[in-house]
């Protein structure tokens, strides 16, 4: 029964699978009591998940058009649609790869049964939440998905067990709840004004009325809280530094990106008539401040994971340059900026996950991660340092890595739109990030002075798989650096309102 579905390619059936699969995995891991079994099962599950998404990727490229999947067969206004376009498929791709690597990493990372029994279900629920957020085409559905992501991240951060981690988790939870409430209020106002929840329908009916500004303002503030843009970023460093390594890797790489994705969708697609150029530039301004403040704080951070967390704050700043670039662009070539930011998201996801894993392995091996005390010790972890170096190179934007291509595309769109000040911001950002990255890399090269070596102490051996995962992600970052054509071609299939149907990338 249900409305006659549009001609459906076989692969479109995978969409609900992409969300249902992690939920089933969560249930299974909850029921399985033996920790080794749940770990092994999770790795299998992650690979199946990757295969499914790869299949979705290839068939989306063949179909070349935006996919809509009516859940429950009721169609847009009444039911909820799963929507997949170029931008969200790239994010999905980033999620699967990072999930695959983090799963194998945490299989070796968590040992005690208490932790594993609670980690795996939460982890798979987080993955389900992420996939739901990227795929959903309904405003309220996004709220629930963001809520899942928020709460599971809080639970995962609290998993670390010590007081500082739990305090950070609590602060993160309060921020998450407040952000979601503001978002919900925004959606309520939109529903009150336009009567529908579906994003596509909304984008057609929205005009620049006061209620829309209020709704957009509330939604943006809620999501800025969850994305931790500069003024509202205070909760991120302690949360990401306190959490266990695989969790902070997933948090930094994916969770903050989900709320950014929703924000981008609202500003560029749904309420684009209401989005004034000045507001977009305000977001850009906050982004620039985030870059500089993040680098400054990272240079002064005392602990390795805190440094990496502050670098996340900085790199997020780059993402927010999307808005001023599209604002000045006008409808025609906005897709170049969007392509640049999509690529940056993927590159940053891989690099940041690899960096956190490397930091985690170093911390596990040495037992502490104060940067000063790591001076001579770190040279015993060559692979982790190497992973950290490549990830750092990608954050700085040095050539062989994906970060360089993203920086190149950003610079390109900045020049095309004639806003030379963003060029200065991007370049200075790169230079400042070089300072704190090399502040850590220098540790690997300092010879162990006499007295230093005694305090360093022998490092505990850590399982090979942990280092291998970080290394694989680093290799993926470098691979991104070489063939950008493949990933950028997806940006032609674009839902975002004024960009839909634009001619392929210049």
């Amino acid at each position, binding site marked *: 029964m249900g409305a006659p579905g549009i001609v459906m390619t076989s692969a479109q059936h995978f969409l609900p699978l992409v969300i249902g699969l992690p939920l089933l995995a969560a249930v299974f891991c909850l029921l399985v009591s033996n920790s080794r079994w749940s770990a092994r099962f999770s790795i299998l599950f992650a690979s199946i998940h990757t295969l499914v998404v790869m299949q979705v990727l290839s068939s989306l490229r063949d179909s070349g058009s935006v996919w809509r999947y009516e859940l429950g067969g009721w169609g847009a206004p009444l039911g909820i649609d799963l929507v997949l376009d170029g931008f969200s498929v790239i994010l999905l791709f980033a999620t699967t790869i990072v999930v695959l690597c983090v799963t194998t990493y945490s299989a070796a990372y968590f040992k005690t049964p208490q932790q594993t029994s609670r980690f795996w279900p939460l982890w798979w629920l987080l993955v389900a939440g992420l996939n739901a957020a990227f795929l959903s085409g309904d405003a*309220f559905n996004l709220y629930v998905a963001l809520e899942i992501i928020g709460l599971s991240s809080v639970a995962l951060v609290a998993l670390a067990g010590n007081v500082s981690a739990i305090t950070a988790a609590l602060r993160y939870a*309060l921020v998450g709840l407040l952000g979601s409430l503001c978002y919900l209020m925004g959606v309520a106002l939109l529903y009150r004004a336009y009567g529908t929840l579906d994003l596509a329908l909304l984008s057609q009916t929205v005009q620049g009325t006061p209620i829309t500004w209020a709704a957009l303002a509330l939604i943006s503030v809620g999501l800025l809280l969850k994305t931790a843009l500069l003024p509202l970023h205070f909760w991120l460093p302690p949360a990401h530094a306190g959490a266990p390594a695989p969790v902070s890797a997933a948090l930094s790489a994916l969770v903050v990106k989900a709320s950014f994705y929703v924000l981008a969708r609202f500003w560029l697609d749904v309420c684009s008539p209401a989005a004034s150029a000045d507001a977009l530039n305000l977001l850009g301004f906050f982004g620039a401040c985030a870059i500089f403040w993040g680098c400054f704080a990272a240079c002064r951070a005392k602990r390795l994971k805190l440094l990496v967390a502050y670098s996340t704050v900085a790199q997020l700043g780059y993402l927010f340059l999307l808005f001023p670039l599209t604002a000045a662009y006008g409808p025609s070539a906005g897709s170049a900026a969007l392509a640049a930011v999509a690529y940056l998201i993927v590159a940053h996801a891989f690099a940041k996950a690899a960096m956190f894993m490397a930091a985690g392995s170093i911390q596990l091996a040495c037992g502490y991660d104060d940067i000063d005390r790591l001076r001579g010790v770190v040279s015993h972890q060559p692979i982790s340092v190497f992973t950290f170096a490549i990830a750092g190179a990608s954050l700085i934007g040095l050539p062989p890595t994906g970060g360089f291509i993203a920086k190149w595309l950003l610079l390109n769109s900045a020049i095309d739109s004639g806003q030379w000040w963003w060029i200065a911001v991007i370049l200075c950002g790169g230079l400042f990030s070089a300072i704190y990255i090399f502040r850590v890399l220098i540790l690997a090269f300092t010879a162990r002075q006499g007295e230093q070596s005694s305090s360093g102490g022998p490092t505990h051996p850590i399982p090979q798989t942990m280092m291998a995962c970080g290394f694989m992600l680093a290799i993926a970052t470098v691979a991104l650096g070489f063939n950008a054509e493949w990933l950028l071609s997806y940006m032609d299939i674009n839902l975002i309102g004024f960009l839909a149907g634009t001619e392929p990338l210049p």
Partner: protein
Amino acid sequence: MSQDLIYCTTGIGLFALGLYGVLFVAHILRKLIAINISGIGVFLVLLATAKHEGVVDPVPHAMVLTGIVVAVAGTALCLWLTVNIHCRQITQQGESK
């Protein structure tokens, strides 16, 4: 001043009050109460829009129901974290004395 407007203003009032409470009240439990209050505010706005003359729109009702459950879940998690921290701090002070 139709019924809808009354409930909308109260809803927004509650939301603002809850917002102030979350931001500026020190104690954690009070903050959670404030969050629930602003949640109720949002639900008021939603349900005010749901009530039309002839027909009652079921969709906001479903949204509010889901909202309530999610609010409960969120509050429960925050409470559990608070108690967790409190116990650890107390035992810590116990040990340190």
